[in-house]
């Protein structure tokens, strides 16, 4: 073995997250493929998830955001159906020429320039990232990687430090205000253990939510996107399927019909711990700068002599210059990778 780049452990492709978390002889990595092109916005997934996981009610308000009144993923919303209303150019095929023209010269209207309503619906969920920032930063070990390669919070360990909340690049996990602890989708860990599919996938009437081994889902998704392109739906694109993206690929990925940000998803999420080695390096340099600066401050003001002697002042100024240069150099020395 040659040298291991620590960054490879924190980001990049990772074929076996469960195995690397210490699970031996574990089942295949489980995943969700959410094909939003067939979603009808029935919210069966939201309801099934709430019911199965006994998630408390978290507000009954009308938001004015189309049919979306659950607003987004959170501590008590683990499946969230987004609704986007758009006007798009009419994409109807040219009408066939009338077989028997009654009025000579009459034109059949063409759809050019007209717009029609397009209603996008998408069921969002925790991505069960290959490199999960929430799990990386959890100081208690409450968040862990299961044998299915999913990411789960242990309620009996979480102390509500809230660090996972801002760490997640998708804004998924959240603390429940009256409880203090963090909650999110478990991909129905209990059901998986009993050989059943998660409640949302079970309830979805259109198979917009597909559950299965992640590798198989990736193949299905590639076929589906090709099929849609052939059918003229050029907007169709996959999101979160690539193992070399910023989070090492999502365990729950999507087929979208518009840019991810339109659905409230980050266009290019990155696991924050990818940059952790750089952060520790700079923190080390900054700590040394503190030690060095204070040492210089003492050297610049020897005991018994006032700090205002000419010598003392020059030294302090020189030290200030050195420290500023060092800080600037260190900040610039970010290396070629970011």
């Amino acid at each position, binding site marked *: 073995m040659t040298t291991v780049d620590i960054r490879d452990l924190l980001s990049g492709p990772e074929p076996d997250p469960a195995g690397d978390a210490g699970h031996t002889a574990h089942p295949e990595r489980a995943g969700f493929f959410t094909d939003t092109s067939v979603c009808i916005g029935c919210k069966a997934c939201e309801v099934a998830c709430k019911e199965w996981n006994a998630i408390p009610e978290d507000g009954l308000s009308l938001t004015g955001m189309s049919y979306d009144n659950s607003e987004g993923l959170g501590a008590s919303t683990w499946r969230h159906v987004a609704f986007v209303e758009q006007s798009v150019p009419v994409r109807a095929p040219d009408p066939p020429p009338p077989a028997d023209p009654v009025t000579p010269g009459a034109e059949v209207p063409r759809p050019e320039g007209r717009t029609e309503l397009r209603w996008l619906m998408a069921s969002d969920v925790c991505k069960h990232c290959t490199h999960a920032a929430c799990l990386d930063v959890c100081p208690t070990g409450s968040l862990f990687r299961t044998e299915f390669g999913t990411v789960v919070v242990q309620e009996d360990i979480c*102390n509500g430090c809230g660090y996972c909340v801002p760490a997640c690049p998708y*804004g998924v996990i959240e603390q429940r205000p009256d409880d203090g602890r963090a909650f999110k989708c478990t991909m129905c860990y209990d059901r998986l253990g009993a050989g059943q599919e998660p409640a949302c996938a079970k309830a979805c009437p259109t198979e917009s939510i597909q559950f299965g081994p992640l590798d198989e889902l990736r193949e299905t998704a590639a076929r589906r996107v090709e099929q849609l392109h052939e059918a003229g739906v050029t907007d169709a694109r996959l999101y979160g399927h690539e193992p070399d993206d910023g989070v090492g690929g999502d365990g729950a990925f999507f087929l979208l019909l518009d840019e991810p*940000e339109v659905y*409230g998803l980050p*266009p*290019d999420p990155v696991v924050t711990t990818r940059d952790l080695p750089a952060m520790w390096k700079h923190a080390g340099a900054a700590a040394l700068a503190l030690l060095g600066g204070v*040492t210089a401050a*003492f050297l610049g003001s020897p005991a018994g002599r006032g*700090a205002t002697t000419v010598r003392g002042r020059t030294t302090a100024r020189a030290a200030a210059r050195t420290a500023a240069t060092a800080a600037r150099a260190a900040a610039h020395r970010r290396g070629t990778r970011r």
Partner: protein
Amino acid sequence: MTGSDVTRDGPRGERPGREAVPAALQPGKPPGTGRRRKGKGRGEQLMVPRAEFRSYYGRPVVKAPAWQARDIAGYFFTGGLAGAGSVLAAGAGLTGRHATAKAMKVSSLAAISLSTAALIHDLGRPERFANMLRVIKPTSPMSVGSWLLAGYGPAAGAAAGSALTGLLPRAGRAATGVAAMLGPAVAAYTAVLAADTAVPAWHDAHRELPYVFTASATAAAAGMALTLAPARENGPARNAALLAAAGEAVAVRLMKRRTGIVAETYEQGRGGRLLRAAERLTAGGALGAALLGRHRAAAVASGLALLAGSACTRFGIFHAGIASAEDPRYTVVPQRERLDSRPPEHGNGRSERPGRHDRNERKAQA
């Protein structure tokens, strides 16, 4: 292209006068009154057009931490004050400035106690604080920090105890040394804690934030020394204040340059106000100490300004982070720019990808 007809502010393209309009949106009122200005991609009502971006009803993409500013920004401030204070205490002890050494040891103990109390107070389940020491996790700055505090706290306590009682001087000296070695780490790690998140203003500043934090910590400790120590001993504190103020100014400038549009959160709103106050207080305190620090009253005033400046820096950075997480602009725009500047075969989330056509063509040829 496509566009949403229904936005969170109501439908667009409607015939006017057909709906009751909330008072705040009626003509004649300046835009933004009566409702919270959220970064909307559409922004028709905004006077100044801003970078175009798309979002889901202007809702945030990442979640801001639920941390209380008083607890967590306070914990950054007191942690820095304690850590840098231990270094000053050790230096003062070694150079025979005993009054300063004793004062700084007590100050560090008090600050680190406050810091730990704030951290525990902010937990959703404070009674489970000990779970922090369940594991050792280098990928979690909070875990690393908990262990650091577990080592530093007792050392700071022993140093202060020995200095106050005069008991066990040798152990006291050893504890002072340990606290001085761990102190800079205590002051620096909180920057990593903030930066190791998806909060744009913190993560994007991850290279500069540690220098900002240690410089701010040094300014606070120097301020404390100026406030507490006799004027004849405060030479090093005055030097340290100057160094820290200069270092912080440079690091903050670099941080703003690095963070691109996200730097707006360091310049506007509550974060901007606090950081401007911090700049003035720190510079004023450092200059006051350098020029007039031999007079006790001026030294105390300068010291208090430095302490206040450091606190403003921490609260300013805290609030800038919250603002950057709450506005989807700061998540979406930089990511979109990064994506669009990347060669298409890496996938940029758009459908017009040459790579995909290539693939189809290759397939057709086969």
